[in-house]
């Protein structure tokens, strides 16, 4: 909103004539934080940015190092590490596999969570706590415990289900569980933002069955939460190392780790690209998530 303080007050209080009067002298200045506070804020901002950006710069610097110039003895800049991503054995395949796992995880997570959560809110609200507890449980279980628990199952699948059982795509089942806490939170906050029960009642009274109620009425109104949940799931899957490594599946993180031992420059280049990809996704959510703009405005005039 581009209006000054006076305009904003007037717009927010349509019936508050008294609020339209001139604000007391110095009221505008009073809103500005004291100089010391502003300095402290900038200091914190710079520290945080430094904390986040410096390692990225270091990675960029490291991954773009070229050969030593024989004349000047200075390091040259080169993108050969990035070009090598395409030729490093197994790396491209592992990236494709990880993206496939991420896509399947997102699909499975949404299929599991969205109908369950909507049903819980609308039909059995007393179960909300139970569902929340179950979804948050993976946070409290160490990865090694999960691996020990599911190890025999994977062993069985590998022995009896042939190529399907031995496929790294079976990691999807574990990844769906791992992303539940984060995805649950994202979708739950969106569901709390709308009157889910009333919208569902309204849709059903108009003739919609449950599938239409969920997919035509509820889902479009929690798109922001679904998008956030999906991006968080993708970021988590692309960053998951422990379980893949312990179960001996070559996902991108495992291959990066192995590559790091052989060619650290390519390893860092891939890591940097993965981070940039994750940041780009998060930025896209905050910038383009539906509803953010709409929630900011509401009609205030009330015609009789």
């Amino acid at each position, binding site marked *: 909103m581009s209006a000054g303080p006076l305009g904003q007050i007037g717009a927010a209080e349509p019936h508050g004539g008294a609020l339209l009067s001139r604000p007391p002298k110095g009221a505008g200045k009073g809103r500005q934080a004291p100089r010391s506070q502003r300095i402290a804020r900038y200091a914190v901002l710079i520290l945080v940015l430094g904390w986040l950006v410096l390692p990225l710069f270091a990675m960029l610097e490291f991954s773009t190092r070229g050969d030593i110039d024989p004349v000047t003895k200075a390091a040259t800049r080169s993108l050969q590490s990035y070009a090598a991503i395409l030729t490093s054995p197994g790396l491209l395949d592992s990236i494709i596999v990880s993206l496939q796992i991420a896509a399947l995880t997102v699909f499975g997570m949404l299929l599991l969570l969205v109908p369950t959560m909507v049903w819980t809110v609308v039909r059995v609200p007393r179960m909300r706590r139970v569902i929340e507890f179950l979804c948050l449980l993976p946070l409290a279980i160490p990865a090694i415990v999960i691996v020990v628990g599911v190890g025999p199952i994977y062993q069985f699948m590998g022995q009896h289900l042939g190529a399907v059982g031995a496929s790294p795509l079976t990691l999807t089942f574990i990844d769906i569980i791992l992303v539940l806490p984060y995805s649950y939170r994202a979708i739950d906050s969106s569901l709390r933002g*709308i*009157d889910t029960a*009333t*919208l569902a*009642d*309204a*849709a*059903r*009274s*108009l*003739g*919609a*069955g449950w599938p*239409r109620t969920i997919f035509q*009425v509820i889902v*479009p*109104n929690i798109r922001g939460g679904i998008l956030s949940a999906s991006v968080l799931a993708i970021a988590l899957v692309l960053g998951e190392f422990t379980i893949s490594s312990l179960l001996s599946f070559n996902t991108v993180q495992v291959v990066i780790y192995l590559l790091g031992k052989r060619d650290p420059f390519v390893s860092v280049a891939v890591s940097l690209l993965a981070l940039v990809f994750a940041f780009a996704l998060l930025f896209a959510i905050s910038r383009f998530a539906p*509803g953010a703009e*709409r*929630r900011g*405005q*509401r*009609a*205030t*005039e*009330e*015609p*009789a």
Partner: protein
Amino acid sequence: MTSATSSSAETGHGVAVVFEDMHRWYGTVHALQGLSIDIAPGELIALLGPSGCGKTTALRALGGLDVVDQGRILVDGKDMTHVPTNKRNMGIVFQAYSLFPNMTSRDNVAYGLRLRGVDTKARNAKAQEMLELVGLKEQASKYPHQMSGGQQQRVALARALAIEPKVLLLDEPLSALDAKVRRSLREEIRRIQIMLGITTLFVTHDQEEALAMGDRVGVMNAGRLEQIAPPAELYDKPKTRFVAEFVGLTNRIPGKASDGTVDVAGTRVPLLPGATDRGAVQALVRPENVHLTAADDGNGRVLAVSFLGSLCRAQVVLPDETIVVAQMAASDSTQLIPGAAVRVSVVPAPVFAVAE
């Protein structure tokens, strides 16, 4: 129980609705205790009562949004008790704003028709017609967040009517609105309801709304229907103590009852059926039936006077310390000032009385 006929009932094309001995338990809470109501085609029944009395449960049961544990619901003679909500063809307007935020007004109104397979052109035309009916033709392309609360509830009404429902259910649709909008919208709802002749169940805790809108008003208390009657009858001839005290303002004035009458402030007043008719009682007298006359030797003293526009309300204390409220035309209250002596008398209209 028979239904009172009304102008809308006579001209309407609505259907009859019957609640037959409905019971509903929530755990140990008996929310509906044998509720039975006959609603005539085209009639608007207002269910009135305090929070938790079961009025919304009854409405939700009719709409299929809640189940009944015992009893039946008949609509146009057909048993609808176990028919799913989406097969009942009933229009519901909810207390909370229930427009789908991702759809424009037009799409909201057309949604029910879309579910019924009506083609885009026809459903948009119908939506436009309905929006015109509620006076929001110009708002067709707006999203709910771009409209005020009153406009949203109008669109919700248009959406409920667009599917040409058998019954219209209004679940406190005005309670989230401010007083001025509430009044204008309730008149609009009533106008449309009479025009379409649609059978309507309206749930509210606001007496004024119920009395102003209902062909008949049902007063509910603790899951039971205390009385159902046309507004004037409900107000003038309450059948139970709860109705007498819940509907309208009531003075409790001590008196002695005998032979079907009660002596109140020196006036013998006939008792309504069901009232305590023997011994010391408290007569429940409407403020407009209390008459004040300025008199130095009067039996009351004015405590306070409230100006309400065309009306005026005065608080008077009697010799036994009973405080009585009298209501009169503002023009008749010029001599009433705090401290003035007045003679208090009661108009001999039938009253309800309870044991003291």
